[in-house]
């Protein structure tokens, strides 16, 4: 009886999934996005693992990317429960202002997370993260803006979709890979045995130009995207 029930449940699940293969494809694709994230954070271009001194920066940015997706999902899940996003969009207010408001909220959330995350990583890895704290803060702020600018737009659009939890990372990770590369390399430049401020500043400027392009694009696309 026990085994028969188990097999029946399995049969039901398989026959439902085989029809659309939705879970198979989206999970597989999420796994591949993770390969991408970890490769760019932890592996150098010559295929060798990164220097030990750079591990904290890789861990920090992976944590930001994962926490960011969860935070984005939750922030919009709340809007969905109350149908408040629809109400916001009905208000006689400029659409880009609504987008900027949501974006700032997400950023605040990310900053608060990092306020605890960075000291924790510095502590457990004994990493000199606070030696050049202003540059590190600049990298984190610029990186978060880039990540959240794309993420807010996508999460807002996915509110109506049934498969939003898995679609968000799938769409967001490949597009925000430059943020991850620049963030990890910039932070690593500050952590290596021979810290390089010019390298960190260079990566910071990559992040800032990414922010300018993607915030502009998101502001422009939010209006047509959110119109029914």
């Amino acid at each position: 009886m026990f085994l028969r029930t188990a097999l029946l449940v399995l049969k039901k699940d398989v026959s439902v999934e085989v029809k659309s293969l939705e879970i198979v494809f989206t999970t597989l694709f999420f796994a591949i996005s993770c390969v991408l994230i970890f490769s760019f954070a932890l592996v150098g271009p010559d295929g060798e693992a990164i220097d030990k001194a750079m591990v904290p920066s890789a861990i920090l940015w992976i944590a930001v990317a994962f926490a960011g997706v969860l935070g984005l999902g939750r922030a919009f899940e709340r809007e969905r429960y109350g149908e408040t996003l629809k109400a916001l969009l009905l208000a006689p207010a400029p659409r880009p202002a609504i987008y900027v408001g949501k974006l700032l909220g997400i950023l605040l959330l990310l900053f608060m997370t990092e306020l605890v995350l960075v000291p924790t990583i510095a502590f457990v890895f004994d990493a000199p993260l606070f030696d050049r704290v202003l540059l590190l803060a600049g990298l984190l702020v610029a990186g978060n803006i880039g990540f959240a600018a794309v993420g807010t737009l996508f999460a807002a659009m996915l509110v109506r979709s049934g498969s939003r939890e898995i679609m968000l990372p799938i769409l967001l990770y490949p597009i925000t890979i430059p943020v991850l590369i620049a963030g990890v390399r910039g932070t690593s430049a500050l952590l290596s045995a021979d810290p390089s401020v010019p390298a960190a500043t260079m990566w910071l400027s990559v992040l800032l130009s990414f922010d300018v392009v993607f915030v502009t694009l998101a502001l422009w696309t939010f209006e047509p995207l959110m119109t029914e």
Partner: protein
Amino acid sequence: MRKAFLPLLVLTGAMFAYAPVMIAGAPYESTMLLVQKIFYFHVPSWFAMFTGVFVAGLAGVWFLARTDERGDRVAVSASEIALMFGAMGLTSGPIWAKRAWGVAWQWDAKLTIALLLELIFVAYLLLRKYGGAGSEKLAAAVALFGMAVVPFVYYAVNIWRTIHPSNSVVPSLEPGMFGPFWFCVMTFMLFFLVLLALRVRVERLRTDLDELYRAEES
């Protein structure tokens, strides 16, 4: 377009049939010999893929700015075709790389962009398939953002190190390789157009059918 389609199809077919003759007649590269011939297939696939990516991105902009259904049809068609040509490039590249570099994969700027674009367009199609109502608009934004991310990835990865043959390979080709190479590029571009025309037509028929079905129901 409909009138031009048949001549286009015939021309593309003829060029495909003649391409092996051109490639066989091209001189051998001095160090890579026969392995280098994959170049006539590999580089044109990338030309076609990038055309697909830009067509999809621009059609997405057209769709978002004008809410024109035709923009969406072109965008979804171009994305699928870009994905197909990308898969061809991602298959032929490592075969060549295994012989020329000794390894099949490297995290180099061009390879990374290729892989990322391929993934972005897989995500695009997953979104269209499983995203539910309204996902075609978000898909247009994904195509646009995918197009916009290319220079950043290129710049970011290039600072690491790059071992892919640089773009200066093409202008420096031996005179005998020049003709076959551009012939193959032209052939692939025409093939791209044929596929795009067919796919857009299928998409139009599909949306028409959906509309008829909905009209019948109501």
